[in-house]
């Protein structure tokens, strides 16, 4: 079975509200795909449709080429944590994992294995009602890993976690992807995916905004801008403007230069005898790239709205 999630023209409406609108993307094996969008963008609804929990009004979602409801022993095909708080408060953590394992005919030893994997050994005998959010997330992840599935899906796995927990989940997802699994992780904060995702699927209002590799997105957002630090800001700006660059002051002694490579900036400044104390190629953060993307989407929506009229 191929380790993929394929979403094709997926659509879900609740009355007059369109929650997911003609959404298509593929989650590939061997990498972490970030699924990003503001709250209410349709991420959870999409994940519930992938899991066969909500019925789509159109389109399809396939796991390894098959719809969820047709999977035999689905926990061995895809592991998911959609809602970490979805455990019965009066049931012990180990028993929660036990019934899940039994439901798919998995051996009891898998329960102990995922308890160790999730670092829950000391808490497994306790009732889940007394668990902190972080422990519930660990229990949810243990449940997702029960069937050793080639595809994994996590809805907001780091939401509300302390830095230690965030680091742990990131490293875990990375290692799962490195083993060749397809990993989909949603977040409403792009910054949570910084350094954690290889590929991004960005949605807003149920529609696809971007489906791109993180590296390419950052390169595009960074442009070929150069950050310059100099005590002679006015002189530097004049020299570089003459050399054909678009310059702007970004601080009392800082200049952002666009349209020239770092080498040509250095050459131009040296030629004119303008001193500088630092120069670096600008690297956009994911957050900046996201803002740029969503700004384009807003503009596009505005244009589309005018055309429709």
């Amino acid at each position, binding site marked *: 079975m191929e380790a993929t999630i394929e979403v094709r023209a997926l659509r879900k409406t609740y009355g007059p509200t369109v929650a997911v609108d003609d959404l298509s993307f593929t989650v590939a094996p061997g990498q972490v795909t970030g699924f990003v969008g503001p709250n209410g963008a349709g991420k959870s609804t999409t994940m519930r449709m992938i899991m066969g929990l909500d019925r789509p009004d159109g389109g399809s979602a396939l796991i390894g080429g098959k719809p969820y409801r047709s999977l035999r022993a689905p926990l061995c095909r895809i592991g998911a944590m959609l*809602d970490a708080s979805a455990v019965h408060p009066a049931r012990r953590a180990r028993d929660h994992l036990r019934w899940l394992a039994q439901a798919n005919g998995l051996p009891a030893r898998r329960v102990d294995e995922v308890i160790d994997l999730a670092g829950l050994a000391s808490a497994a005998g306790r009732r889940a009602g007394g668990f902190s959010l972080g422990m519930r997330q660990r229990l949810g992840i243990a449940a997702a890993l029960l069937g050793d599935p080639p595809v994994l899906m996590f809805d907001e796995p780091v939401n509300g976690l302390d830095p230690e927990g965030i680091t742990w989940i990131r490293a875990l997802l990375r290692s799962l992807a490195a083993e060749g699994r397809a990993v989909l992780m949603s977040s409403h904060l792009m910054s949570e995916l910084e350094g954690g995702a290889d590929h991004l699927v960005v949605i807003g209002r149920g529609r696809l905004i971007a489906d791109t590799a993180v590296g390419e997105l950052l390169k595009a957002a960074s442009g070929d801008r150069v950050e310059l630090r100099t005590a002679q800001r006015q002189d530097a700006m004049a020299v570089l403007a003459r050399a054909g660059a678009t310059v702007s002051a970004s601080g009392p002694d800082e200049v952002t230069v666009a349209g020239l490579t770092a080498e040509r900036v250095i050459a131009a400044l040296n030629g004119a005898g303008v001193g500088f104390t630092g120069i670096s190629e600008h690297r956009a953060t994911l957050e900046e790239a996201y803002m740029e993307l969503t700004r384009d989407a807003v503009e596009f929506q505005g244009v589309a709205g005018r055309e429709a009229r």
Partner: protein
Amino acid sequence: MTAVCALRAEWTKLRTLPSTWWMLAAIAGLTLAVGAAVTGSVDTSHCSTPAGCMEDTPKLALSGVQLGQVAAVVLGVLAVGGEYAAGTIGATLAAIPRRSTVLAAKAAVVAAVVAVAGTAGVLASLAVARGLLPGNGFTSANGYPPLSLADGPTARAAFGTVLYLVLVALLALGVGTAVREQAAAITAVLALLWIVPIITRLIASAKWEDRLDKIAPMPAGLAVQATRGLERLPIGPWNGLGVLAAYAAVALLAGGALFTLRDP
């Protein structure tokens, strides 16, 4: 294979919640306690002759089931409503996508545990009543042989009472699946069970009482406890239990249909 896995999972789910054991204890305990209290409070002194009381002693002994059934209702509703309340229904359906398999497995394990608790409550009630009845004038000499399962009608009343509890729990499971919200489902099932007994107490019309008792789940279902004057019953013992079984079947089918058709 899938069915066996679903049964094991549902059994584990049921047995790992403390509330299950409390409800099972309540089914047996309330049936016994109320049965013993009612049996102990009735004697032959209010009749002209002891034999003239015409008391249906097995039915008297098993009257505690009227309260014991409340625990069966709660257990049946919790088996599915607890999953909606806790949110584990998503995990259940992720592991077993076939809704009908999930509901059938739940019905099987609920029926099994209620049958065990019901049997315990019924046998204990009969044993205690057997000890209490002679002291209240219900002796062999007065035409009331000691309660015994060797007596056909008594055995039928005892077995039927266990089935009654099982069917009430299944009715509750069906309503719980349809309604999803636990408090609403428990209220709905208790109302369905008690509405006719309460109404007939108020309208005081023998004709209407007979008509309603034939079609209402609790009065019809409890006809299975009668061992005397069967010809005067509005509905026969097994037919009455059949009425309750029909309610349970409709509730499970309706619950199952909604479970399959709608998003959880």
